[in-house]
């Protein structure tokens, strides 16, 4: 058997995951193995030569970009490698933090397997079969959500149900599309096919009204796991969705379709923003905030003609780092506070100022505060939305304020003194009794620095990921 890129980025992570499962009691070994694999594969994807030939001294390895399986092929071309590098690097980052208290032991191998399946989904030919690989990734992800113990399985089943129901829609839409391309645009079957396809993606992306599982899963699972899942699934599904626009001219030339996508994106931002602002549970608030982010991705997709695809892609790294920091901070909060109800975190900021700053800055970065990572892209996106349709732009802006409002509520509660910190005169007394350890706040400091650097130099850092558009020649 000759070497091929799918063997590297699909088969190898699965083998490593299997080894981790076998040695699941050796925690440190598992962390080292999975982290090295994820970061190693990310680096390899970054530096992989265009001729797919690796030379180490006298040894030369020639890779093929396709792997035949049961008469079909998985093909990971050079063009898609930046995205593969991105998702593996982010998986590595999440795996690195898997030593946090409460993270299921299944998280490390499963996160690698999920990443591998989603990578395969990006390269399988015919590309429609990706729906089945995404479904497989969803099935594999269930044990790491680990809600059996706390009986929060209703959300997981809803997640599983929606994802399972989505798959037939995608497959049937794909089959219909093969016939629709020869029909005139005014044929009713064209519209019906677009509706079937839209329903499939709405289910996959948890678009309103199929969003209920997000908050339920977010509330009952570990923040590290949820933040990983809510980053990697929508991101890969959106890239998978680009295949349809790339392949079918009637989809990418239809102004109505892009208009509908913009409206749906705005609805997600508005509803998600309102729900985020009024949540009393920090983990549920995170779930709803991810819906806002899906809305922004859809909004950017709807602005394809204005260059929106570049912004959609550039939002991914900023969002991923924000999610990671948010998930990490919530996990630390949960360890120290026990509960993540906003009412329970009063005064926490005085005891753990850097962790609290991490949470606040993660939220503000996602929300698009100036100087932080998402700001340069979101401001362009909102400006462009206003220029295309003032009403949509205004609503998007208002919806985006939801996360700012939540952050203000959290900030007020975090800095509010607790009963024991008041003096006789009713004023807070003394220094803040901080009890943070360096190992806890160091990742926060590094990530905040990264978010600031991205916010200051967005073009330098974020523009690399837009190279994957070369994999979709019709969309460039």
């Amino acid at each position, binding site marked *: 058997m000759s070497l091929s890129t799918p063997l590297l980025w699909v088969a190898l992570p699965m083998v490593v995951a299997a080894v981790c499962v076998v040695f699941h009691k050796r*925690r440190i070994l598992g962390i080292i193995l999975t982290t090295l694999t994820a970061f190693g594969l990310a680096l390899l994807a970054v530096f992989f030569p265009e001729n797919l030939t690796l030379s180490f001294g006298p040894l030369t390895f020639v890779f093929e970009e396709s792997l035949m*399986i*049961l*008469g*079909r092929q998985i093909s990971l071309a050079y063009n898609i490698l930046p995205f593969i590098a991105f998702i593996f690097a982010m998986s590595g980052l999440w795996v690195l933090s*898997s*030593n*946090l*208290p*409460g*993270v*299921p*032991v*299944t998280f490390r191998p499963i996160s690698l397997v999920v990443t591998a399946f989603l990578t395969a989904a990006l390269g399988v030919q015919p590309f429609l*079969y990706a729906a*089945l*690989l995404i*479904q*497989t990734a969803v*099935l*594999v992800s*269930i*044990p790491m959500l*680990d809600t*059996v*113990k706390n*009986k929060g*399985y*209703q959300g997981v*089943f809803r997640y*599983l*149900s929606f994802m*399972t*129901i989505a*798959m*037939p829609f995608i*497959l*049937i839409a794909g*089959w*219909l599309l093969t016939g629709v391309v020869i029909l005139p645009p005014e044929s009713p*079957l064209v519209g*019906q096919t677009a509706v079937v396809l839209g329903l499939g993606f709405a289910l996959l992306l948890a678009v309103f009204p199929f969003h209920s599982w997000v908050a339920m899963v977010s509330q009952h699972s570990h923040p590290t796991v949820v933040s990983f899942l809510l980053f990697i699934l929508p991101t890969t599904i959106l890239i998978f969705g680009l295949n349809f626009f790339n392949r079918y001219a009637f989809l990418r030339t239809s102004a109505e379709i892009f208009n509908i996508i913009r409206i749906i994106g705005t609805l997600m931002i508005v509803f998600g923003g309102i729900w985020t602002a009024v949540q009393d549970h920090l983990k549920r608030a995170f779930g709803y905030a991810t819906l806002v982010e899906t809305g922004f991705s859809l909004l950017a997709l709807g602005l394809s003609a204005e260059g929106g695809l570049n912004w959609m892609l550039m939002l991914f790294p900023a969002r991923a780092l924000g999610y990671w920091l948010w998930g990490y901070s919530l996990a630390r909060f949960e360890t120290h506070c026990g509960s993540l109800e906003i009412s329970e975190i009063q005064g926490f900021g005085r005891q753990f100022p850097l962790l609290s700053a991490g949470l606040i800055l993660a939220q503000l970065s996602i929300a698009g505060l100036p100087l932080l990572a998402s700001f340069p892209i979101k401001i362009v996106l909102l400006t462009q939305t206003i220029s295309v349709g003032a009403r949509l732009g205004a609503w998007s802006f208002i919806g985006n304020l939801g996360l700012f409002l939540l952050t203000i509520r959290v900030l007020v509660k975090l800095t509010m003194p607790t009963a024991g910190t008041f003096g006789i005169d009713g004023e807070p007394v003394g220094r803040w009794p901080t009890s943070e350890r360096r190992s806890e706040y160091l990742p926060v400091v590094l990530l905040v620095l990264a978010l600031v650097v991205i916010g200051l130099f967005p073009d330098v850092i974020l523009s690399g990921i837009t190279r994957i558009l070369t994999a979709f020649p019709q969309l460039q």
Partner: protein
Amino acid sequence: MLTLSTLAFVLIVMAAMINLIIRDWRITAGALAVQYLAAFVLVTLSWPIGMAVVKLIAGWMATAAIAFSWHSSSNQRQHKNSLPISESTASLFFRGVAGLLIVLLIFILSPALQARVFPQVDLMIIQGGLMLMSMALMQLGTNSDPYLMIISLLSFLMGFEVIHAALELSTLLTGLFVVVNLGLALVGVYFMVSPGDEEAQHEP
């Protein structure tokens, strides 16, 4: 072949109705197995038997996995014969009427769907597939038990596979469907095992 496919369709309707109405784990597992058998017959209308039998075997494996898991977990919980749901006659009646309405709806909609979207697919296949999918969705919406929810999802997929088999023949697709079916069954097994078993599996 027409007689056989008609018989398979009748079996699908009966098994789907039983799955929708009755909550006894033995009966629902048996009905699911019968559904897989009937679906296999419908798939043979479009595929060679050698390929179609893969779906039957995978389906029965999934059925066996969840049924035996439920049996062993219910033994632990001292609920040997029935699911832990107290049923009123009204809820049985509601599900029965809902099932009959679905049957009626499928008979009305299927010919139009065949004419407009799937002209080359046998009407019996469309009716059988849609019947399974619709009944499964109804079942999914009327219960919250992991065992029944997994049965619903398996039935939903089975219905889709019946229709999709008439549209495309692919070994990889068949393999992926097997993985998804067995994966669903394993998720069901995962949720049916005792919660106490998971206690020791977290980081300190």
